[in-house]
Every structure is written in structure tokens, then in C-alpha cells.
């Protein structure tokens, strides 16, 4: 059986600048939530961007169900079944919530099911139904994050990648965001997320990946990563953290 997603020894950087990633890998566990942590500049966001095609993978391999993703454009990667929500959430501020959702289905070849899917999503996320005509740009941070994540589900993707979904959100809202991730996995979606708040990210994840010095230094079940002494000391703020 071919692996869902294989990310091995990826070397990547911005334009023709130096390589930020120097051999990053992820041992992807289908249907689980993976949390990527590491210090600033380690290349966490860079890795996600490389997988989805926004950056060129210079060396290493990224294969999806046996198909090579290297060199594909982001819109092509999307059609393979991998969605990416960047830090800025990629919403259209001047379009309404419903229009944003509709835009989420842009790449669907068969539009007849699109309206049905949008309705389904609105049912599952009542806040979006409530504000369906509101301009996306006027919503709060948490609502925008919900919209961005719900939008990915319109396409029923295999993998959803999230770059710092909890950025700028109040703790209560962050909990809701992680709830959505749980809902996604219940739908069979594999989630990869980058989290600056390493402690919280690992607590809610199934698998942990530690990126540092441009490489994957540690990788394993989230609980193991959380309780490892070295990781606590270096990335979780000291021995008293967990």
C-alpha cells in the first residue's frame, strides 16, 4: 500500500536565497493530527509551503500516494487533495462568507454538488450560516480562522495543512480551533499543523515533529515528544513545563 504522504529530506528556501530547510522529513500518520514545532526561523512554515508548491523543493522528495509533488504549482497540489491555510488565512475580505465558501469550491470540476456542500458546511458550522452575507474582512480572528478551515472541507481533501492557526486568538477560541481539527480527522482528513505554542499544539496532537537547524531533529507520538526531557528544556520552556 503506497504511503499517503511522504516528506523526506526536503531542502528548500525562498527565491535564490540560502536553504532554510536542509533535510526536513515527516513520518505522516494517516488520519491523525501532526504538530510541527521548533524555534523561530527553523523552517516550519517553509516546510508546509514547500509541500503545497508555494516554494520550490530543491532536493528531497515529496510524494502523495506515490505521485511526485515536486515542481507542481499550488493549484495543482490542491487538485491532488492537499489544502493549505497560510498564516494570513487567505480569505477574500471583500467577499461575503458564503462567497468565500463558494470560492473554496473553485477547483471542483462538477459544480452541481457545490451548493449542497456549502449548505452542509454551513450546518456544521453555525457561525458561518449566521454570518453568511457578512464581508469576511469584518469578522473576528476566530471567525476568520473557522471560515478558512471550514472552506477547505468543501473539497473533501485528504490532507489539510494549517500554518499557526491559533495566531492572535484568545485561548477559548483556540480550543474551538482545535475542535475543528478533531472534526476534520473524524472525516478522515489528515492534519498537519505548525504551532508556535508548542505545548498546546502537542497536547492536542497525535504526532509531534521537532524542526530545528533546518532539519527534523525529533519525531514521534505527541505524548512521547511532550514528555522528553531534552524537548521540554529546549522547546517547551524548561523542565517544569509539562
Amino acid at each position, binding site marked *: 500500500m503506497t504511503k499517503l504522504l511522504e516528506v523526506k529530506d526536503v531542502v528548500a528556501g525562498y527565491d535564490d536565497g540560502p536553504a532554510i530547510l536542509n533535510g526536513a522529513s515527516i*513520518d505522516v500518520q494517516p488520519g491523525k493530527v501532526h504538530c510541527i514545532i521548533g524555534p523561530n526561523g527553523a523552517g516550519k512554515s517553509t516546510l508546509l509551503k514547500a509541500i503545497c508548491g508555494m516554494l520550490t523543493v530543491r532536493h528531497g522528495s515529496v510524494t502523495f500516494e506515490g505521485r511526485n509533488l515536486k515542481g507542481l504549482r499550488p493549484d495543482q497540489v490542491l487538485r491532488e487533495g492537499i489544502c493549505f491555510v497560510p498564516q494570513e488565512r487567505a480569505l477574500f475580505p471583500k467577499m461575503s462568507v458564503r462567497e468565500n465558501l463558494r470560492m473554496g469550491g473553485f477547483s471542483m470540476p462538477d459544480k452541481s454538488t457545490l451548493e449542497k456542500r456549502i449548505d452542509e458546511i454551513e450546518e456544521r458550522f453555525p457561525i458561518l450560516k449566521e454570518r453568511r452575507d457578512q464581508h469576511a474582512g469584518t469578522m473576528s480572528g476566530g471567525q476568520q480562522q473557522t471560515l478558512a478551515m471550514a472552506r477547505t472541507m468543501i473539497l473533501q481533501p485528504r490532507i489539510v495543512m494549517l500554518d499557526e492557526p491559533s495566531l492572535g486568538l484568545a485561548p477559548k477560541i483556540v480550543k474551538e480551533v482545535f475542535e475543528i481539527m478533531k472534526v476534520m480527522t473524524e472525516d478522515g482528513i489528515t492534519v498537519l499543523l505548525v504551532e508556535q505554542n508548542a505545548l498546546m499544539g502537542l497536547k492536542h496532537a497525535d504526532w509531534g515533529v521537532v524542526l530545528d537547524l*533546518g532539519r527534523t531533529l525529533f519525531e514521534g507520538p505527541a505524548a512521547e515528544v511532550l514528555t*522528553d526531557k*531534552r524537548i521540554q*528544556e529546549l522547546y517547551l520552556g524548561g523542565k517544569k513545563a509539562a
Partner: protein
Amino acid sequence: MTEIYENSEDIVAARRAYNETLAAAHDKRRAYWFPMFVVASLLALPALQLVGNYNYLIHLVLYTMCYVTMASGWNIIGGFAGYISLGHNVFFAVGGYFAGMIFARYGISTIAMAPLAGLVCAVLGYVIGLITLRVRGPSFIISSLALVMIFRIFLENWHFVGGAAGVSLPANDLPVETAKFPYYYAFLAMAVFAVWASYKIKHSKFGLGLRAISKDEIKAESAGINTRLYKVLAFAFSAFFVGMAGSVWGEYLTYIRPNIFLVILISVNMVLMCILGGKGTIAGPVIGAVLIVAFNEFFVATLGASAINILATGLIMALTLMFFPLGLVGTLAKHRKLPRVLNWD
């Protein structure tokens, strides 16, 4: 669980080593003798007139030094702060007209007036900058073009300065062999001053602030830099040098006319020289000026002074922007191949 390091100290050490590799190389040694050698040679150059007629060469060098002054000035706003002004020849015109009219009416030498003309342009630049520097990037460039148009229409219709026909200025009464000398040394002094000043600015807190602005203005603002003041000051400083050059240029040509100063090629040259040489570097404008003047001479000699000139200039600019956006000095520095004599930063 995959693991590579045994304990945290190893990781911290590895991190330090890794950061080292990312740091840019920095050659602190300076070849001070080179600029001094250049200046000394330039001081002595006019002596050639004793052995033959090198008037055209003197003119070329003078012309180059005028551009060095202007390009170095432009570099302050365009290179250091990153705001591309395509209409800087407006200050060239204002300087030229200011000093030229005073010379025409009161006989005071434009060389003596040059600093004052520069100051006038600096004030004008400050005022204009307050308006145009409120917007970034593309809008700013557009406003600089509109500025040229406004000044052009203005000067062409102002009878006091002779409108489109301009004003004729008396030539000096030195013999032909030495007639260019005062202007030559004036421009030499200006060029040296401009290069020295841009070095000083670059290495000051002000210059650091400008560099921050050019990289990311929003972050610079949130870091506490008064971006508005810095930008407008940079614009004013750059106007100062261009205005100084303009004031003497008019007298040198013995007439002032709108289409001497406000023709697009002059502002393009200022910009192109900085880009070709290296935007934001100190030696860049100097090298760029020399190269462009040389190219120009070459083209005129081989292709004749015609439309092909514009085509060729455009082509050089396009190729430089596409393949060597950092310019000569910048590209060499990036690949760590910059010869010390050219490292004036």
C-alpha cells in the same frame, strides 16, 4: 522516536554553528588609497591641457562628475530608503534656474551660489516630500513623473525665466584652454562631497533607519523609527546634491532652458547609474556614472546620436534589472568577489 542528539547542550552548540553559516561575510579592510588616488588624478588631469588639446576629455570627466554628484544624491532616497524617484531632474532644473537667474541678473557666480541653490532645492524637496511620500512604491514613482510634467509646463510658460526659450548666460572670460577649469574643479568638489556625505549618512543612525525603511517600512515604523521624518529628510538631502549640480551646469552650458534639465534621459541616467553600479552602495553611483557615460560615448560614436540611444539605454537598464538587480558592486559583493578597491561602504 527519531532522534539525532543525545542531549540539549549538543543541540545548542549545533545551533550556534548553524547560525554562523548563515551570517554574511564582512570584509572590514578598506583600500583607502584607491579613492585618494582617484581624486588626486582628477585634480591633476587638467594639467594635460599644457601638452595638448584635451578639452573634450575634460568635458567628459566634468560631465561624469556632475552625474556622480547627482547619482550619489539620488542614491540617498532611491538606494538607501528604497523610494524610486523618476523625477529628480526637477531639482536639477530648480537649482539651475535659481542660480542661473541670479547669475544673469546680478552676475554672482553660480559656483558660489551652488550651496544656496542646493539648500533651496532641499527645502523644496522637503515640502514636496511631505506630500508625495505619503504613499509607497508605485504611487510615489508616478507622482515623481507627474512632478516633472508640472514643472515643465510651469517653466515653459513663465515669461520671467524666458519660457521655452530660456535665458542665455554670459560665458566666463578665461582663455579656451582653461575656460572649463572652474567648473571642472567645482564639480570635482561636489562629487567628492556627495560621495563623502553619502558614506557618512550610510554609517549613521539615520542611514540605518533608512535601510530599515527600505526593507520593511511597517516593521521599521513599529520599531519606533519616525519613518515619515526620515523619508522626507532623505528626499531633501538627495534634492540638495542634485540642485547643487544643477546650479553650475547652467552656467557651464551658458544657457538655461526647460528641455536641458527636464528631459527624461537625465532622470533615467541618475537612476540607471545607481542601479548599474549598485543601488544603496557608495561606490555604485560612481562606477555607474563612469560606465553610463562611457556607454553613451560609445553608442554615439558607433551609432550616431539618435533614437537608437534611447533604445540602447533602455536595453541596458532592462538587462541590468532582470539579471543584475544588485548592480555591479552589489552582485560582486553578494558572491563575495568584490575587490577591495571597490568596497567603499
